[in-house]
């Protein structure tokens, strides 16, 4: 009975770790798809315009954004060497990192919310290695719940 008890504890612990690793893998797959989609879009645009966009009009990854109402007053202090900044906001704001921005731009094909059209799913599957395709198919319906013992 004691050995069963120990195995039951071990089983529970492994299930929790697998759940955590499934969501970690899901986030990595989303990032890979979002980044590849962004690169593809930029490459197509540059081919259409036959030149890269003006340097001061692009924001390279990694970045974060802080957005707030136009009415917000922001008090900003900057050190001379630009190593330190201090911002005081008198109203609320939001902070988002670049992967969140890419998801909102639709670069993750809606997989982050489990709403992915058949067309988008086809695109997303083409952007990942074979071993990850079953995960992408599953993510189109919702969070990853399985582990596929595929090789490759």
């Amino acid at each position, binding site marked *: 009975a004691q050995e069963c008890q120990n*195995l039951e504890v071990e089983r529970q612990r492994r299930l929790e770790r697998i759940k955590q690793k499934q969501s970690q893998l899901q986030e*990595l797959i989303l990032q*890979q798809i979002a*980044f590849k989609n962004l*690169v593809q879009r930029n490459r197509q645009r540059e081919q259409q315009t036959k030149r890269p966009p003006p340097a001061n009009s692009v924001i390279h990854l990694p970045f974060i*954004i802080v957005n*707030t109402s*136009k009415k917000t007053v922001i008090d900003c202090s900057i050190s001379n060497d630009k190593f330190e900044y*201090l911002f005081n906001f008198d109203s609320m704001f939001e902070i988002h990192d670049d992967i969140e921005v890419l998801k909102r731009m639709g670069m993750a094909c809606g997989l982050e919310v489990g709403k992915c059209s058949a067309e988008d799913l086809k695109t997303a599957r083409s952007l990942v290695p074979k071993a*990850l395709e079953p995960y992408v198919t599953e993510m189109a319906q919702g969070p990853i719940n399985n582990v596929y013992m595929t090789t490759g």
Partner: protein
Amino acid sequence: RFQALQREVSELTEAEEKLDELINKCSLQLRLLTEDTVTLGYVRCQDLRNTVHPADQIIMVIRAPPETQMQVSEPTEGYQISLKSSKGPIDVFLCPED
């Protein structure tokens, strides 16, 4: 019951090892990807404006060197964001409205 548990734990061990392998591969692929196509990994101000609602907000973009410390604290009035870099200057700019 003991044998059934033993079998299940061994399957879970295999599944977890598979996940570890995929996570390591994916992390490496993403790192190589971002290094190889650094010139094409960019967004434009209009992209950012399309992701905030309402669109006519102030959008501040922060590009910082690695290990920059960002602290968000709640002093007596309003909120404070402080940025401290030890590896180089921090770039902060506002997205133009048009």
